[in-house]
């Protein structure tokens, strides 16, 4: 019994010694760093950010960075000269953004005419919602791609047809064949007509 007690006592004291030894080292390291900083203040030390500003986002939104690659990946990086950050599109993220994400800029399908599937917004709200996109995707460039952009400029949000966080390659309009794209037109516009017909217009 005495042997066991002795063994425990020696183990504890041994651990304590190790801890004190380790603490010594870390304090020494910190203080030396601190010294180095203060001494090199006048010799223009270059500070580089190694912290990823998207890190906090990707802790919860784990796949979002990868799913963005198909639409705003390499090409966007080449054009901008840097990688896009989450907040460049999803700005004004508040501390309590998990509560219905009231402050975060989010993107969702919406249109100016009453439909069965998509929510309703007025012209101004749609223009405001697409404002962030049209900063880079200017009206001229959109018109060059297709005339359809022109006629929907204030009548539908980009997300009504496009999937930005697509899984891997492209999803939404751009991934579709011509026929399937036309089917997308038909989907919404037929819906409008049926609703009008029901109302007796």
């Amino acid at each position, binding site marked *: 019994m005495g042997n066991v007690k002795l063994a425990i006592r020696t183990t504890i004291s041994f651990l304590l010694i190790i801890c004190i030894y380790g603490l010594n080292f870390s304090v020494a390291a910190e203080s030396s760093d601190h010294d180095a900083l203060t001494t090199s203040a006048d010799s223009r030390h270059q500070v580089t950010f190694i912290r990823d500003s998207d890190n906090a986002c990707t802790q919860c939104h784990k796949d979002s960075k990868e799913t963005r690659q198909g639409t705003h990946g390499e090409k966007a990086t080449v054009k901008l000269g840097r990688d896009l950050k989450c907040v460049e599109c999803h700005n004004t993220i508040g501390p309590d953004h998990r509560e219905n994400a009231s402050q975060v800029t989010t993107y969702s399908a919406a249109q100016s005419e009453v439909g069965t599937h998509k929510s309703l917004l007025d012209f101004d709200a749609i223009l405001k919602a697409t404002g962030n996109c049209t900063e880079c995707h200017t*009206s001229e460039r959109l018109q060059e791609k297709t*005339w359809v952009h022109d*006629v929907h400029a204030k009548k539908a949000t980009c997300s009504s047809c496009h999937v930005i966080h697509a899984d891997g390659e492209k999803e939404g309009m751009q991934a579709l064949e011509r*026929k399937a794209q036309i089917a997308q037109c038909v989907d919404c*516009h*037929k819906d409008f*007509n049926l609703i009008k017909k029901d109302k007796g217009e």
Partner: protein
Amino acid sequence: MACSRRNLLIGAGAVIFTTGVAKVALAKKSLVATQDVGDKRYGMVFDETACIGCTACTDACRETNNVPEGVSRLTIERSAPMGEYPNVDYTFTRVSCQHCDNAPCVTVCPTGASYVDLKTGIVDVHSDKCVGCGYCLAACPYQVRFFHPETKSADKCNFCRDTNLKAGKLPACVESCPTNALTFGDLNDPTSEINKVIASNAVYRSKIELGTEPKLYKVADTKGEIKR
């Protein structure tokens, strides 16, 4: 049993009367889109104010009538952009056979391949009679005829006469239109939908000054220039 001349005549008269009446009654009940029932004058209204330019109709036409790529019986022509972002707008118009009552393509055809079907008023082509001279292509003021790459004969819209109409359906373009921009029907029937649409809208027909008497009516768009 004696069958007098009088009885025979009465009987024959009754048979003729009843079958005749029955035939007329049957004809009245038939679907609008059937063709072998008398003097119809099929026409179409294209509502430019309703068309969204999706071209679902051109694809439907291609599929239904087996029109190969490279040629088309029906195209939707889009105008240049009008206005500035975000108020840019376009107008659309239908380019297809106008089914003229007085069709120049029929008049110039040397073989009788191009003809107006008198029962429906539809301008059509007997592909086996066509020799491919191309007179009709040149004569058509609306420039809607082409040589079919497979049959090598002149071809164009025939209101799906041998496909959808035959099956008792509306033409493929009319069926596929999501905004109901197309109305098809009998211009001879005063109660038909097409006559109601023509009566209640500002309609125009292309190049009527040529005396072609086209049966494709267009509801003029409220914006842009009318494409005559």
